[in-house]
């Protein structure tokens, strides 16, 4: 489970370089998020365009990632594939996370 970070138009982007966020990698994902999230930045965009599959453990790990941010900090999502988008919609987690069609769209806001 590899996360890479870069700045795009002044926005911090975290890209998940993996095709799955599932129970087998959920703890790793949380650990990596802890490493890449600073405590002073108010907004991050998690780029999920490579992720083809997520289960409820993966969903929980992304929620846990958001909780690592300081109060008022935002973790937004971009590039959700249909199977991933469906999990967020079904669990109504799409009401908690701002979801952007792509990193470009997220960075232009």
């Amino acid at each position, binding site marked *: 489970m590899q996360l890479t970070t870069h700045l795009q138009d002044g926005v911090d982007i975290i890209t998940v370089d993996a095709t*799955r966020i*599932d*129970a*087998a*990698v959920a703890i790793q994902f949380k650990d990596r998020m802890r490493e890449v999230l600073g405590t002073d930045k108010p907004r991050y965009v998690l780029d999920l365009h490579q992720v083809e*599959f997520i*289960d*409820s*453990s993966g*969903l*929980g*790990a992304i*929620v*846990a990632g*958001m*909780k690592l941010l300081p109060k008022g900090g935002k973790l937004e999502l971009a590039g959700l594939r*249909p*199977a991933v988008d*469906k*999990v967020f919609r*079904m*669990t*109504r*987690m799409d*009401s*908690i996370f701002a979801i952007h069609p792509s990193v470009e769209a997220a960075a232009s806001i």
Partner: protein
Amino acid sequence: MQAERLDDGAFLISCRMDSTPDDVQTTLLDINDLLQGEEIAPPPDCTWELVVAEVLNNIVEHAYQDRAGGDILLKLRFGHDRLTVEFTDFGLPMPSGAPPTGAPANLDVPVEDLPEGGFGWFLIRSLTENLNYCHDGRRNLLTLAIPISPRTPL
């Protein structure tokens, strides 16, 4: 892992895995590989893998209490309009003798209190039909069906 094509066109996969998240992941990847190129493979937007993953994760976490060394048997029958799945394990029975009702999580809470789990049975129940569970004193047997929308002809 064994795969067999039946006379009626259904595709049958049976396998055994160890009670670890890694083995669950490997099994799901192997099943996806087997389905590659099969005419009966569900369309990409089908949620079969999510349902099967959630049930298997629950077996690892609850029936086997996150301990490796437990056997999980999985049988999948991919038919034209439905996938039927049978899960067998030899771990602890469901606490109330039945699978959880799977109520949706309450999200109307401050961020720090948002749930990080408890979505599994909600997803399973939302996406399946004919869910049956029994414990026969030795093993848990769970069966369910997942409707598959027919593939649009090319």
